[in-house]
């Protein structure tokens, strides 16, 4: 499938058989990447496929020696020991989370770490002159003295690029550059990339937005499960979105799920026109008019790419713990309920298992038993006193039934593996006696064996007549687990598919394009 390198374009970068292992996990396995000088090269793949890891290897975040394989850049094998080394060679990476300092001005940010100075004294005149030039090059009409926090994300992205240009970049890497941008900012950025290309700068772009890739990229390398699958030439291979999707998901669905016969009852939980604003950016919506239902005993999947607004939706429903609530209604068993904070959400029978176990889900100083009871302490308290015997009994019960691998429930949660930590978090929420569980990336960072067990637990919960929402970036997981799948794109629900209608391709299509939104929102699978 690999397109032939017919032209005699010089190759600026070649990564040969890059293998990067973390203990127990092979993140990259024999990945190869050839980037020609002066082209825009796209890297596509699902979340977790290894794209970012590959770029971290290239930019020296993972230093030479921590991976196998060669990086040949400008015809020399490189041994970058850190980011500075790769930047000195002209490789600049712009991460999804921008590395700008909000309080500093545009000019100060551009020259941060690279100040024009003599004997430690910065020549601000020179800096201003150069920053005006650089801002003109990236098409940003702002006073260089404006603090970065006062300009929008789109413009901040341009400042990052100006900063890169100042470092005389030869190879520019953009990781999801348009993920946080609106339509017109995205378009401006894409035009800028084409402009840079015309000036001879090579770019690598990582993006989930396939239409953008189709628009600007010359070649695409697809990475799947830590392996490079193929490199396609947009023009020569006549690539379109469908072709890319096929490459990204093209794998067989193994039977990695326990047997389960769903017993689906009446509608348990309904959300109507849920609209939520971004907590910091005033006019940005993270949830746009979302409506959905969950029935008793049903496992409902939520598919969407990173940043699509899945977590934002879940957390804003869970006691408004994220964003600015604007409008929307929640019904449970046909009755409207009002949930304004987390204690009310828990009381209303909601449970939310966060995608970010370490920073939002667990107090790593705690042990298993204190964590297990922490969301429902009242249940084990007599008068004023927390009953430690009851605490133990409860925690021990869950440890046994969920088969959490730990010597005792007195073990600190920080010592557990990801899978066992997740079981403790699930136990914590099961102990609150919820009717609806929202599980955000329930198997992230968990090995395959433990995943199977977690799937089993999820199915059991559904079997008990609870509603379960599973948010996941892994389509096979959603397809294997869910009875119905909603897709989210840029904060809006773009469709819902029944288990038997859904395929990875159909989901990916709804997840990556706004143009198809709306029409699919009234699907056949909508329960009566």
């Amino acid at each position, binding site marked *: 499938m690999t397109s032939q390198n017919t032209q005699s374009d010089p190759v600026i970068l070649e990564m040969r058989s890059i293998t990067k292992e*973390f*203990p*127990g*996990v*092979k*993140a990259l396995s024999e990945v190869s990447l050839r980037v020609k000088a002066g082209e825009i090269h796209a890297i596509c793949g699902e979340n*977790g*496929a*290894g794209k*970012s*890891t590959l770029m971290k290897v290239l930019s020296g975040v993972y230093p030479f020696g921590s991976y196998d394989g060669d990086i040949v850049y400008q015809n020399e094998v490189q041994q970058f020991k850190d980011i500075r080394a790769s930047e000195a060679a002209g490789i600049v990476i712009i991460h*999804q989370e921008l590395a700008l300092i909000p309080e500093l001005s545009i000019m100060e940010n551009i020259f941060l770490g690279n100040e024009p100075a003599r004997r430690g004294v910065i020549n601000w005149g020179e800096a201003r002159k150069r920053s005006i030039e650089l801002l003109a090059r990236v098409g940003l009409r702002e006073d260089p003295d404006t603090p970065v926090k006062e300009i929008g994300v789109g413009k901040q992205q341009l400042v990052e690029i100006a900063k890169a240009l100042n470092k005389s970049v030869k190879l520019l890497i953009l990781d999801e550059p348009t993920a946080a941008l609106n339509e017109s900012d995205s378009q401006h950025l894409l035009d800028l990339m084409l402009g840079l290309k015309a000036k001879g700068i090579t770019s690598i772009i990582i993006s989930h937005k396939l239409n953008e890739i189709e628009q600007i990229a010359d070649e695409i390398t697809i990475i799947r*499960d*830590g392996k490079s699958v193929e490199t396609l030439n947009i023009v020569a291979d006549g690539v379109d979105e469908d072709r890319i999707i096929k490459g990204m998901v093209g794998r067989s669905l193994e039977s990695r799920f326990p047997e389960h016969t769903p017993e689906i009852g009446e509608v348990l939980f309904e959300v109507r026109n849920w609209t939520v604003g971004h907590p910091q950016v005033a006019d940005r919506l993270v949830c746009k008019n979302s409506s959905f239902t969950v029935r008793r005993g049903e496992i409902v999947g939520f598919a969407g790419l*990173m940043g699509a607004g899945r977590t934002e939706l879940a957390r804003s429903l*869970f006691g408004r713990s994220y964003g600015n609530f604007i409008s929307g209604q929640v019904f449970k068993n046909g009755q409207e309920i009002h949930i304004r*904070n*987390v*204690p009310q*959400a*828990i009381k209303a029978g909601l449970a*939310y298992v966060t995608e970010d176990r*370490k*920073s*939002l*889900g*667990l*107090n*790593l*100083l*705690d042990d298993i*038993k*204190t964590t297990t009871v*922490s*969301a429902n*302490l*009242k249940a084990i*308290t007599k008068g*004023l*006193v*927390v009953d*430690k*015997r009851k605490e*133990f009994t409860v925690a*021990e019960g869950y440890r046994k039934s969920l088969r959490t691998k730990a010597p*005792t*429930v*007195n073990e600190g949660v*920080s*010592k557990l*593996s*990801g899978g066992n930590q997740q079981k403790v978090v699930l136990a*914590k929420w099961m102990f609150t006696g919820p009717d609806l569980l929202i599980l955000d990336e329930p*198997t*992230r*960072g*968990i090995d*395959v064996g433990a995943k199977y067990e977690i799937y089993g637990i999820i199915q059991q919960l559904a079997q008990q007549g609870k509603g379960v929402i599973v948010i996941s970036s*892994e389509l*096979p997981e959603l397809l294997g687990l869910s009875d119905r799948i909603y897709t989210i794109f840029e904060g809006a629900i773009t469709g819902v598919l029944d288990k038997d209608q859904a395929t990875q391709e159909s989901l990916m299509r709804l997840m990556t394009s706004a143009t198809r939104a709306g029409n699919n929102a009234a699907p056949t699978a909508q329960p009566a």
Partner: protein
Amino acid sequence: MKALKRIFGGDTRQFGMIIALVALVLFFQLFTGGKVLTPTNMINLFNGNSYILVLAIGMVLVIIAGHIDLSVGSVAAAVGIVVAIAMRDWGIPWYLGILLGLVLGAVIGAWQGFWVAYVGIPAFIVTLAGMLLFRGANQFVGKSLTVPVPEEFRVMGAGFLPEIGDFARYNAPTVILGFLLIAAVVFLEFRNRRIEARTGATVDPLWVPVTRLVLLAGAVLYVTWLFSTGRYGTSFPVSGLILVGLVAVYVFITSKTILGRHVYAVGGNRHAAELSGVQSKKVNFLVMMNMSILAALAGMMFVARSTSSGPADGVGWELDAIAAVFIGGAAVSGGVGTVIGSIVGGLVMAVLNNGLQLLSVGADMQSIIKGLVLLIAVAIDVYNKSQGRRSIIGMLMNGLRSNQPPTPEKEIAKTSEVITPAEPAGTSK
């Protein structure tokens, strides 16, 4: 060595710090020629430090919750002067004076708690402002003068238990209290043991708690003997009694109640706590308010001891209290700390002060030594944290050697998740 570790180690890690304390006492006892462990000196030590220890109790909660309170000295002074003036000029009786002081403490605490919890201003700033504000209030209200307090009020800072009868030369109430304390310790030890046995914790063989109790009871008996055999009319001081009572109450709150759990939860991981339904604002408010109430109490105890309230009362107390808490094993980042640990930490500082004074070490050297002790104690804490251990207490238990099991493979894999949160190191399909 292993046996010793068993006796003092295990769940009650404070014992490590206690060893340091005992070593310090013995050191000074030896080098002062026996001046430390005398009834008079011990009474001085308690009376002169109980108010700092009261502050340490409140401060450890503040620090566990992830905050700090710099205003306690000024709050104590402000409350002290108001109470003194109220008793002198308005003629209110001593018990209403105490009540007034506590209510005033609560009001001040509510003020500070409001800014910290509900407006979201860092406690460092709020209490720095409070430090200036309430120092000024003290001098404004008292016109920078010294105001004496009545005799009855002085009992809480400098009083003793009554002499009942004449049992040879022993003070009866002190002896009774000593035996009650021993009985309570024995009862709690075996109760805990029973609970541990039922809750799957590894239970020590019987000789371990027995040895521990014998040592502890011995220590209590010795202290009882010291306090009960002092000059006629002296006994275990009232301020010490207040302290013991507070310790009991706050140990109970921190280890047995929902509120206590929530304080640790908020300090350990505020976001996780909130997503578990903990109302962190309320917790922060209560913790700050509680601190000011205890500061008010400490201020009154000090005024009672020094027989009058003055414009320079409480200067530098916040630092003593904070030092006690950190020496006692609390973590700078919150979530870790114990009431007992802080009391022991405060006693370490107190004994250090007292011993150095008895050795006629100048104030300059005293300050240098105390500074170094604090720095080293927290340095050990930070080092231990980086090694995945908990606190100075654990360190003292383990000596300087690392007896941690090698980090399991999976732990290392998790580090990679942290590095690449967007794409957890090949979440491997």
